[in-house]
C-alpha cells in the first residue's frame, strides 16, 4: 500500500470518474489512483456493482475487489463517492438486464446498501443510489418512472442511514436529456427531478447528483431547456431552488467533453482541454457545486469506440495531453489557456 498521501491542488472541487470495476491487477488499481492524485483531483466517483459483490446468493458478499479499490484510494488521499447499482441475477426475473429492479426486490437492494455503507464506514461517506434513472436503458428498458425510483431512493436512504447516520446519500446521477413525457428512451432531467420532488424525494437525499456533458458547446454556453450543454446544470439547480432545496449541494458525478475525430457530438482535442479546465473553474465559482467529476479517467482496456476519447489516460498508462494540462492547472499554472499557434 505504501505511505499515505494527500492531494495537492488549487481547486478542491476537482474530481474524476474512475473505471476500476473491471481492473483486475492490484498494481494497475494503485497506479490509476496514484495518477489521479498526481493530477490534482481530490475526488473520485467509482462504480461498485451490486452484482459483483453479492453475485450468486443473498447474503454472500465478496468485498475483496471493492476493498482493494477503496483502500488504495484512501491511501492516495482521495475521497470516494461510491455508485451502487447492477442487479444480480438472483434479484431479477430471467431475461431482464442488470438494470432491472422491480419493487419486490427494493428491500434486497436496501439490504445491500446497508451492508456496503456499514462495511466501508470510516472509509467511504458518499453513496450514489442507482445511475441515470431517467433513461429507459438504466431502468431495465422499462418506461422511466420517477415515482418508483423515488420509492427505491427512500428505501436506500433509510438503510444507508441505519448503517451510518453521518453518511451522505446522493440520488442516481440524472442524465442530461431533452426527452419529453412519453418518449420511450427517457425523460428530461428537469422534469424527472420535479416529479421526484412531487413524489416526496426531498427528504431522501443529501446531495443532488447530476451529469453534465458539454457535447459541442463551451462550458459557458448559456443553458436552455431544449439544449444539452454543460451549463444545463444551472437549470437543474433552479429546480432544486424552486422546491425549497437550495441548502443542498450538487455533485456533477459525470461530465465533460469528447474529442473523437469524427463523432458529431465531439470537439477538437484542444477544445476539450480548454473546456475541461474552464469547467473545473466554473465549478469552483458555483457555490452550490461540491464536485465536478470528469468522465472518465481511464478504462482497463480500450473501449474501441468514441468512448476512448473521453479518457485522460490510456489503458496502458500513457498520459494524454489533456491530463498534463489539467495537472498544470491544478498545480497553479496560468499558461494552460494558450492555444496552439
Amino acid at each position: 500500500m505504501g505511505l499515505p498521501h494527500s492531494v495537492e491542488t488549487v481547486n478542491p472541487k476537482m474530481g474524476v470518474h474512475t473505471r476500476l470495476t473491471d481492473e483486475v491487477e492490484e498494481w494497475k488499481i494503485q497506479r490509476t489512483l496514484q495518477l489521479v492524485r498526481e493530477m490534482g483531483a481530490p475526488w473520485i466517483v467509482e462504480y461498485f456493482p451490486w452484482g459483483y459483490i453479492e453475485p450468486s446468493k443473498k447474503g454472500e458478499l465478496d468485498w475483496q475487489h471493492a476493498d482493494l479499490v477503496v483502500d488504495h484510494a484512501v491511501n492516495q488521499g482521495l475521497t470516494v463517492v461510491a455508485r451502487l447499482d447492477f442487479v444480480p441475477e438472483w434479484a431479477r426475473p430471467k431475461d431482464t438486464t442488470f438494470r432491472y429492479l422491480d419493487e419486490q426486490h427494493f428491500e434486497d437492494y436496501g439490504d445491500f446498501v446497508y451492508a456496503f455503507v456499514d462495511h466501508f464506514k470510516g472509509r467511504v461517506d458518499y453513496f450514489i443510489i442507482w445511475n441515470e434513472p431517467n433513461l429507459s436503458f438504466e431502468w431495465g428498458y422499462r418506461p422511466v418512472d420517477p415515482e418508483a425510483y423515488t420509492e427505491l431512493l427512500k428505501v436506500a436512504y433509510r438503510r444507508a442511514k441505519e448503517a451510518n447516520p453521518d453518511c451522505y446519500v446522493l440520488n442516481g446521477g440524472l442524465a442530461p436529456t431533452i426527452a419529453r413525457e412519453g418518449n420511450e428512451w427517457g425523460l428530461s432531467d428537469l422534469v424527472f427531478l420535479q416529479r421526484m420532488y412531487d413524489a416526496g424525494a426531498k427528504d431522501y437525499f443529501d446531495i443532488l447528483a447530476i451529469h453534465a456533458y458539454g457535447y459541442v458547446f463551451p462550458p459557458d454556453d448559456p443553458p436552455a431547456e431544449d439544449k444539452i450543454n454543460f451549463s444545463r446544470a444551472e437549470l437543474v439547480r433552479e429546480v432544486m431552488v424552486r422546491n425549497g432545496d437550495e441548502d443542498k449541494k450538487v455533485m456533477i458525478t459525470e461530465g465533460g467533453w469528447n474529442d473523437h475525430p469524427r463523432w458529431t457530438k465531439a470537439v477538437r482535442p484542444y477544445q476539450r482541454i480548454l473546456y475541461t479546465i474552464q469547467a473545473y473553474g466554473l465549478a469552483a465559482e458555483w457555490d452550490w457545486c461540491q464536485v465536478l467529476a470528469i468522465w472518465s479517467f481511464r478504462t482497463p482496456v480500450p473501449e474501441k469506440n468514441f468512448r476512448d476519447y473521453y479518457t485522460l489516460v490510456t489503458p496502458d498508462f500513457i498520459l494524454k495531453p489533456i491530463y498534463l494540462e489539467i495537472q498544470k492547472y491544478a498545480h497553479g499554472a496560468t499558461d494552460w489557456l494558450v492555444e496552439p499557434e
Partner: protein
Amino acid sequence: MRSQGREKRLTLALVIVLSVMTVAAGMWLALMPGEQSKDETWERIQDEGLIRVAMDASYPPFEFIDEGGELVGYDVDLAWELARRFGVDAEFVIISFDGLYDALRVGRVDLIISALPFDSRLTEDVVYSHSYFNAGQVLVVRQTESGIVGVEDLPGKRVGVEWGSMGDVEARQLLRRMEFDLLPYAAPEEALAALDGGELDAAITDVVSTYQFSREQAGISIVGPPVTEDPYVMATRPKSFILQEQVNTAILELSASGFLDELRLRWF
C-alpha cells in the same frame, strides 16, 4: 519410482480422456450437419430480398445525415454495394453506437457497418469481417521530401500534430527515444497546411483528415506504415456463417477491384 509411475498413468489417462473428448466433439459436429450448414440469417435475407444494416449515423464521412435529410457516407455506399452483390435490397437501421451490438444480438439487424473498430473482447459474441479501412494515425510528408520514409527518420525534424490528438500522444511517445521539434496545431488541416507550406518536415495526423486535405492540396503524401492501427470491420452473429463468407469475399473483391479506393475518393 512409484510416484513417477503414478504420474505416467495419470498423464496417460489424461491423454486418453482428452482424445475421447476430441473424437466425441468431432463426431458431434459431424452428426449435426443441420446446425452447421444452415444460416438462418442468410436464408431470411434471400427469402425477403432484404439485408438489414445497423449504423450510427453520426460519424461523417462514414455515415451521417446530409443537409437534405438523407443517410449518406462511405459505409452507406459500401452497404448498397454489398446488397447489390447479394441480389437484395438494403434497409438501414439507425441506432446509437452503444446499441449496435445489442441490435445484432437480438436479431433486429443482420450486419453492422458503422466505422466499427475491431474489438478483441467481443470475438465470442460476434464474428468480424476482414478490415476494409484503417483509420489510424499516419506519417505525412511533402511529395518532394525523400529523406523521411518512416518515423525513424524524424530525429532533428520539425513535426506537426493536432494538439491533444492521438497523433500528439504518439509523437510524445516517440520523443522519449528520439529528438525532434514537436509543433502543435489547433486542427489537423492546419498542421497539414503548415507542412504543405514548408513550415514543417512531417506531420502525424489521422488518415481521414489527411485524405480530405490531400484532395485539395496535392503536395503531400503518406509514407511508411501507419503510425497506429485502427481497423474498421463489419460484424455478424456467430451463426451467420454464410453471410460472413459472402461479406469477406466481397471485401476482398472490392479491394482488389479498386472499389474501396473509389469510395475513399468519393467521400474523403
